[in-house]
């Protein structure tokens, strides 16, 4: 094993770092992912309870494997299934030597948990538990659902994997690009899920963006030469860096143009820039790298007015060609407006009205551009249309406030 790149502090952190290694070892010996995953969770809980009293064992991973193995044996005894017990005994005694390659093990688990057969809603909590070492309770709290509901979601995800008969191995070279896309998509969604406010009742929630970054670091450690993995990590770091400036004192949303850039996290920006640059040098451009490059241009600008908009426009044009995604086209329209003026941006929006007419962001962008042109009444109408369609409470508050300001009495 190489030195762990992903460290969380304290006992909990060490246990979470060990979680995927223990799980992979147990799956390899036992063959059943679902049961192994339960057993390892129990072993982790047992360690968290007893280690503070007894002290950490000399071989923590060995300790976890022994406890998980006992749990499995106990469970099979309870099942009273002689056949399975015999099988298990046989599998233990066959005992293929552990090839403790932490990197591959983690990667196999990530590929398994982010299998394209699973919806992101199932893959995300499973990944957090099996690879991230979080408990069901922590995951349930993070997603604001009751613990039994989350437990069911995870166990159904595991049942689905069992049905699909995914072997506990790295995907074949043919399968690999598609499987990796699925992994990166799940991690990207997890990051966005956590990119919420850091005030109010959400304070107690597990930091999902932080978890997404941690997991993406693990994947990058296992695949150090993949430029898209690096691109995604850079994108996350460069976006996360802006979090402290993204909300005001009362949790209200502060748009990029109005953020106090002194609050941005310089260490994250430096790291993100360096990872993005290294990835782009490989010359295999992908969508996450392009998004990271756009985030980098924002993060490097000393002020909103000094942003390199023509470069951002070029990158959005490339990204639109790569993805055909209407949301990207919308962001490109913003860049066009910054380079060629609000009128040019508005013209592009008309072409998107069909696809995105129900999306709040189309109306919000149009409202901002109309406001710049001085058409306050039309801007107010569009801000209201955006507020009606927003699905995030803070965005709706922001848009409602903007609508009131644009529609209010003029001096």
């Amino acid at each position: 094993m190489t030195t762990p790149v992903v460290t969380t502090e304290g006992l909990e952190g060490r246990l979470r770092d060990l979680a995927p290694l223990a799980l992979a070892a147990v799956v390899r010996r036992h063959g059943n992912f679902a049961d192994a995953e339960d057993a390892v969770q129990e072993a982790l809980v047992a360690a968290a309870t007893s280690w503070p009293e007894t002290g950490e064992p000399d071989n923590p991973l060995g300790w976890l494997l022994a406890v998980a193995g006992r749990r499995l044996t106990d469970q099979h005894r309870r099942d009273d299934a002689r056949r399975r017990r015999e099988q298990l005994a046989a599998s233990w005694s066959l005992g293929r030597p552990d090839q403790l390659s932490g990197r591959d093990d983690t990667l196999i688990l990530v590929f398994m948990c982010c299998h394209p057969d699973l919806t992101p809603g199932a893959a995300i909590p499973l990944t957090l538990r099996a690879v991230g070492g979080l408990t069901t309770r922590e995951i349930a709290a993070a997603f604001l659902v009751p613990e039994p509901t989350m437990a069911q979601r995870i166990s159904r995800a595991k049942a689905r994997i069992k049905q699909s008969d995914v072997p506990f191995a790295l995907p074949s070279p043919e399968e690999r690009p598609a499987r990796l896309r699925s992994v990166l998509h799940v991690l990207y969604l997890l990051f966005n899920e956590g990119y919420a406010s850091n005030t109010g009742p959400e304070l107690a929630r597990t930091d999902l963006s932080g978890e997404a970054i941690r997991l993406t670091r693990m994947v990058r450690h296992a695949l150090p030469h993949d430029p898209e993995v690096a691109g995604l990590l850079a994108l996350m770091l460069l976006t996360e860096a802006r979090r402290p400036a993204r909300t005001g004192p009362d949790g209200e949303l502060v748009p990029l143009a109005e953020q106090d850039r002194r609050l941005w996290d310089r260490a994250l920006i430096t790291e993100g820039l360096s990872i993005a640059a290294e990835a782009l040098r490989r010359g295999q451009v992908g969508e996450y790298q392009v998004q990271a490059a756009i985030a980098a241009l924002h993060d490097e600008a000393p002020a909103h007015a000094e942003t390199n908009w023509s470069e951002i426009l070029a990158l959005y044009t490339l990204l639109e060609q790569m993805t055909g995604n209407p949301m990207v086209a919308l962001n490109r329209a913003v860049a066009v407006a910054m380079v060629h003026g609000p009128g040019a941006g508005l013209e592009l929006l008309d072409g998107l009205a069909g696809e995105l007419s129900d999306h709040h962001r189309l109306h919000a962008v149009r409202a901002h551009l109309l406001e710049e042109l001085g058409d306050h009444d039309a801007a107010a109408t569009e801000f209201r249309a955006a507020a009606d369609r927003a699905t995030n409470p803070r965005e709706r508050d922001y848009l409602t406030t903007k609508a009131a300001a644009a529609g209010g009495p003029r001096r």
Partner: protein
Amino acid sequence: MRFMLLQNYGEVESGCAPMTEWTPEEVAAHIAFQQALNEELLQSGELVDAQGLAGPDVAKFVVSDGVGAPVVTDGPFPESKELLAGYRLVDVDSPERAIAIAAKASAAPGPAGEPIRQPIEVREVLAAPPDPQG
């Protein structure tokens, strides 16, 4: 994504008699259906909450200007059919899935086990993550 599935005291599309006029077996079957649906949604990992509310007769309306004593109006109310009777809060993968659950709830059994075709109001909860572009 989260959706509230709301049902009120209004008339149901089947036009069946109000529940107070059903046989005990019919009432029991209806309640069992609702509980089974909750259990199903728990097993599918989608149920966040499900609650029934006390009836319109004990509902109160409160109005205040923040200074004087609040005005509290007791029921019954002439517009009681518009009051909320209960809700389910579900966390699902798609709007289509929320509609499928609502359809199931709407077909709850009534007299003679016939679906009552209760209108279910489907409302998305403002809980989506914000746009990270900002």
